């Protein structure tokens, strides 16, 4: 039943680009593609975040991914089909270099968050410093390969990108679900609560934390690649550093990181809000969106720690099935 519902949902989502969306069709599609890409990144982040591995530097993996494929294509003509696994591989390597010493020496909680925060900034500054190839803070435009080029993953038709983003987002959800239903989830949950106790029952703590971190980093890099291919312009401000790293975290915390769809709902809300404010008020209230979701975030952390989606879901489930009396 659940499976059927999910299938119908996916089929409907896949049909969206062919619905009569009116004159704003292209704009709506554009926003939806962005939501799917960032929701995928948020889901990848939540793989770690839900187990207490709070990274404030996922921009590092995002930027590494986006710049790897873009530079390879622009300078060497290497197809992103080859560039993407390379980008993911580099992000995994970077995560290993960061994660291994952190986990081995028990850098946890706030300290881990601070280390990742620094990593995001280091990558941003590196991109700016290497301006000869990266274009520095001005950014880099993906070399045009025509209106439809499968080898270069460039499509002028937004509908194609929508389907690509939808597929990638679904892969992200599938990975989240796969981790969630295995013993791995219990093990990571145990590690998140009490590393000493987890290790005492035979759970290889460092190995588990490392693996989920590498997975999250690799997926995030793929998200960066997808963004670069879609927007065809990248710069260190939007794809690396503190700004984007925090945006990912905001969206996920807003939607809720303990549920499959929480990161997606959070991302959709933040992007919708930002777009609404931009369209409604133009540049008069630049920074308004940040203020609003800063405020919303504080309220949510206090009143709905499971996030908007997670909190509502809990409420609905509790209505549907009153808790059994404890026996």
């Amino acid at each position: 039943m659940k499976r059927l519902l999910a299938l119908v949902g996916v089929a409907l989502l896949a049909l969206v680009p062919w619905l009569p969306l009116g004159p704003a069709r292209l704009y709506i599609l554009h926003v939806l593609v962005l939501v799917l890409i960032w929701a995928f990144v948020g889901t990848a982040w939540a793989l770690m975040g839900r187990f207490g591995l709070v990274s404030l530097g996922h921009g590092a993996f995002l930027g590494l991914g986006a710049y790897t494929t873009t530079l390879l294509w622009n300078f060497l003509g290497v197809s992103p089909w080859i560039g993407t696994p390379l980008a993911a591989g580099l992000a995994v390597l970077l995560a290993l270099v960061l994660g291994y010493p952190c986990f081995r020496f028990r850098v946890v909680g706030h300290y881990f968050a601070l280390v990742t925060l620094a990593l995001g900034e280091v990558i941003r500054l590196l991109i700016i410093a290497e301006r000869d190839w990266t274009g520095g803070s001005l950014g880099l435009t993906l070399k045009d390969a025509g209106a439809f080029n499968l080898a270069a993953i460039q499509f002028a038709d937004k509908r194609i990108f929508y389907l690509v983003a939808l597929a990638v987002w679904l892969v992200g959800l599938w990975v989240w679900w796969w981790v969630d239903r295995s013993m791995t989830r219990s093990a990571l949950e145990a590690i998140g609560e009490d590393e000493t106790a987890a290790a005492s029952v035979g759970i290889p703590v460092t190995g588990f934390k490392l693996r989920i971190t590498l997975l999250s980093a690799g997926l995030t890099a793929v998200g960066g690649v997808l963004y670069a291919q879609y927007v065809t312009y990248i710069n260190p401000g939007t794809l690396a550093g503190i700004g984007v790293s925090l945006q990912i975290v905001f969206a996920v915390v807003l939607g809720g990181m303990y549920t499959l769809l929480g990161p997606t709902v959070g991302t959709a809300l933040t992007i919708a809000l930002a777009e609404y404010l931009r369209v409604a008020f133009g540049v008069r209230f630049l920074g308004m969106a940040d203020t609003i979701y800063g405020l919303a975030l504080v309220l949510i952390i206090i009143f709905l720690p499971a996030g908007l989606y997670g909190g509502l879901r809990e409420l609905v489930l509790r209505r549907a099935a009153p808790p059994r009396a404890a026996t």
Partner: protein
Amino acid sequence: MLSLENVSRTFGGFRALQGVSFEVKQGELLGLIGPNGSGKTTLFNCVSGALRPSAGSIRFRGEEVGGLTPDRICHRGIARTFQIPRPFKKLSVLENVALAAHFGHMTREPDAAARARARDVLRLVGLPSDEAARPGLLGAAGLKKLELARALATGPALLLADETLGGLDLEEMRQAAGLLRRIRDEMGITIVWVEHIMATLMRVVDRVVVLDHGEKIAEGMPREVAEDPRVIEAYLGEKLVLG
């Protein structure tokens, strides 16, 4: 089975353990006693890998285990409980134990087998094994049982039980002591049992090692040890009852 040679551990300049040596024989139920702060838990931490000993050697079944990571030591067959229970509160009681059954062995058991083993262990210690039972609903005695169940589920050859009686009433203490005895007798698991109150322990164990200020001050049969002047001095002010 387990042999400690000159095991020491310092914290900063403070010596929590100083050159402790003793042997635990296969199938033995050994009591490890000593006043509060004498280094009993620190010794367990060193043997189980939670702490690295500063010096000395810890051999288990003939192999050095000092300095290995706790998960490796668990896989070798040493399990420990925590003095202050450390349940995974987000997981059910069953999941707590199933996790230990799954990851505690050298080769991982499949989920279903791990759950079945977890249910057996929960039945043995007398805890509910349905999915709805949460650690948060357990009292002090229940949490102590959960510690024991989790350790047992890893299939140990040697169990390190840290103050299994702490915070229990008399009847619960009797039951817990009986349980440890049964674990040794029926499952053939060697046990080192730490307690700072001597009375109940002395009636059940085969042999006793006494620590004071991080040093071993006595070792022997419960009756001999209870009459040892150094032990009486160390426990000065605490009641020494042998039933």
